[in-house]
């Protein structure tokens, strides 16, 4: 099977950079394009982009992906199109975190909250993905961050099936992170984010940024208070950045 090729526009998108930046990288010989035999057009191989993306901060790359109007598949290394693949990569995360100094017990907690956030995306969107199925999942041990995102229905649409009175994204996020809702749900799910909040609030190492719709929140180390605010740019799904 031949390797996937990307046009300049597609390459810029999956790397989370502008076309101008892509061109500058090419001139600086940091990215090497190839020419298509049939029309001599310039394009990039997936392996070339994967190699370069190792230097990039996934928290920046994901912004372009989640805010894109039409949607596109991320590079394979940061894309879990189905839940079993996510589980496999989650176990890789746990192995890598176990090698990081000063994390010890926190590595299991960090993996657990990443697992809850990622699995939430699959559980709440199964059969209902608006465009790109699955999640963006990448971690950067040097920058000590983990990024999870989906282009699913978002917290408000999901929770409204259980709590129709929710009026906006801010209220939906507050409910998701504070209320036990399984008792009212037709299915026993929906408490994962409260677990996430509890773990982060009781840790001296972990912090979380979470955004859905036009609402965003951050939970700091050893801080139980939720800071939920309205963001300037909205998107439909969910974005989480765990720092440790």
């Amino acid at each position, binding site marked *: 099977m031949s390797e996937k090729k990307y046009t300049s526009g597609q390459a810029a998108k999956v790397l989370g950079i502008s076309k101008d930046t892509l061109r500058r990288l090419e001139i600086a010989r940091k990215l090497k394009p190839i020419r298509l035999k049939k029309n001599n057009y310039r394009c990039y191989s997936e392996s070339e982009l994967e190699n370069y993306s190792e230097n990039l901060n996934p928290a920046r790359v994901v912004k372009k992906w989640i805010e894109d109007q039409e949607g596109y598949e991320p590079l394979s290394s940061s894309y879990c199109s189905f*839940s079993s693949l996510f*589980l496999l990569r*989650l*176990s890789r995360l*746990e192995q890598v975190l*176990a090698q990081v100094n000063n994390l010890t*017990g*926190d590595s*299991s*907690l960090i*993996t*657990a*909250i990443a*697992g*809850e956030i990622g*699995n939430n995306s*699959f*559980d709440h969107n199964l059969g209902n993905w608006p465009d790109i199925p699955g999640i963006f999942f990448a971690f950067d041990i040097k920058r000590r961050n983990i990024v999870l995102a989906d282009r699913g229905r978002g917290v408000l649409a999901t929770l409204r099936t259980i709590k129709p009175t929710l009026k906006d994204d801010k209220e939906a996020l507050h409910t998701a992170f504070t209320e*036990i809702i*399984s008792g009212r749900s037709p299915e*026993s*799910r929906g*408490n*994962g984010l*409260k*677990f996430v909040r*509890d*773990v982060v609030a*009781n840790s001296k190492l972990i912090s979380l940024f979470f955004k859905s719709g036009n609402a965003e929140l951050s939970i700091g180390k050893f801080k139980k208070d939720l800071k939920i605010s309205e963001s300037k740019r909205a998107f439909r799904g969910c974005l989480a950045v765990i720092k440790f």
Partner: protein
Amino acid sequence: MVIALKKFGTILTSRQMGKEASAAFRPSLSNLKKDEIIEIDFEGVSVLSPSWGDEFLTPLILEYKDRLILKNTKNPSVQATFKTLKEIHRFELLEK
């Protein structure tokens, strides 16, 4: 009866996998004697989260109550999961 959870994997996080583990394990409870204690052994489990726990552990805890004992539960994610499950379901957990 002792249930070694590591037989279901060492990273126990997804609701779907918890459901499958429960469905696979349930038939073996038919051999349980009256008043027999069930020990759930967390030895070897490196990550547990409430989604998996709610599918596998919660039905057992609700059904067998004080006949259920949890052992080797020191892992921080196991402890954090217990805390969440207790808050949701208002039950007590017996740890060895």
